[in-house]
């Protein structure tokens, strides 16, 4: 109710921030394209809006949805596919915390020294005991709201990733129209779910469905290309590759 001073979800949501800062993020990685950036979300992207849902049934695992989410939050980086790194908040995945992402390119391609090619980030905007959600900052590939959840269904716990996304700018949209972006995104989350299932000793088969929510392009957001994290990362990549090859990172 509007006159209720403390709704039940009050502690689950992040407070509004003007710009992101990295003060609470663990050390390491290319810390680019996050500090000083605004959050975007699917409202502010350029490309078509998609809702993509990926899930895996943890058949035979005794873990409850709450236990799955506890493990998922605590060990989040370990479930990511090879070549991608997640430098999480020092205090764990909690509302308002920020993380640095160093991502491989399409098809899991990295630069020499297994150097990720896109540096960006996320902010945790929501977390409860059966779900948590990230939003992305300017420059990220996707303007999105991504929710990780677990629930009981037909006697098994199901782990799910649901992404409501638009590509951030025309260049990223082009890669999605060519199919490369979609395939990379789909492979990424399905591999993540298989890794999560393996953590619970389940050889899970990740599944997915996608729906085109809004086919229109938002041309007013084409200017987002100015913050394109892939382009900006490319400028510092040679130095980063050298550091890795010389063992300084």
């Amino acid at each position, binding site marked *: *109710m*509007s*006159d*209720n001073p*403390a*709704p*039940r*979800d*009050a502690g*689950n*949501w*992040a*407070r*509004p*921030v003007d710009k992101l800062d990295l003060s609470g993020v663990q050390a390491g990685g290319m810390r680019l394209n996050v500090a000083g950036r605004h*959050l*975007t*979300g*699917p*409202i*502010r992207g350029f490309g078509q*809006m998609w*809702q993509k849902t990926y899930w895996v049934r943890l058949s035979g695992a005794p873990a409850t949805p709450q236990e799955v989410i506890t493990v998922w939050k605590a060990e989040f980086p370990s479930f990511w596919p090879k070549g991608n790194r997640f430098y999480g908040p020092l205090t764990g995945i909690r509302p308002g915390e920020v993380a640095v992402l160093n991502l491989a390119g399409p098809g899991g391609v990295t630069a020499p020294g297994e150097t990720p090619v896109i540096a960006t980030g996320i902010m945790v*905007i*929501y977390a*409860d005991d059966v*779900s*948590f*959600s990230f*939003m992305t900052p300017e420059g990220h590939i996707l303007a999105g*709201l991504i*929710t990780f*959840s677990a629930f009981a269904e037909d006697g098994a716990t199901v782990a799910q990733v*649901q992404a*409501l996304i638009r590509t951030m700018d025309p260049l990223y949209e082009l890669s999605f129209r060519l199919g490369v972006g979609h395939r990379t995104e789909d492979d990424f989350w399905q591999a993540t779910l298989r890794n999560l299932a393996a953590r619970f000793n389940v050889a899970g088969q990740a599944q997915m469905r996608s729906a085109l*929510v*809004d*086919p*229109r392009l938002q041309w007013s957001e084409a200017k987002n290309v100015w913050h394109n994290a892939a382009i900006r990362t490319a400028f510092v990549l040679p130095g980063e590759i050298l550091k890795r090859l010389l063992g300084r990172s």
Partner: protein
Amino acid sequence: MATKALETSVRRAGVVSVISLEGEIDGFAEEALNHAYTAAAAPDVTAVLLKFDRVDYINSTGIALIVGLLAQARKSGRRLLTSGLSQHYREIFQITRLSDFMQIYPDEATALAQNA
């Protein structure tokens, strides 16, 4: 903790359709919310007002549902308006950027006065 499934009712006020929401907006609200929006989106309706006065819980899946409604509304050239949001939910609309595209009014009367 007891939860309250979302209930909706739809009525017309000139060119605005008003959807009153009561209960919780989470993943279980999808059918009720989409059904209400479909009923509200008559051809001559230029704006749809979502009344949040009696909503006492929204999670991130619920916010994603509202983003989906906003996309539907914009696709068909309608405005999506809100009223009755508490300060807490105003902040959620701010951080999720919903407030960039949804006009927020303190109450139904003000919303209708400015959009009828």
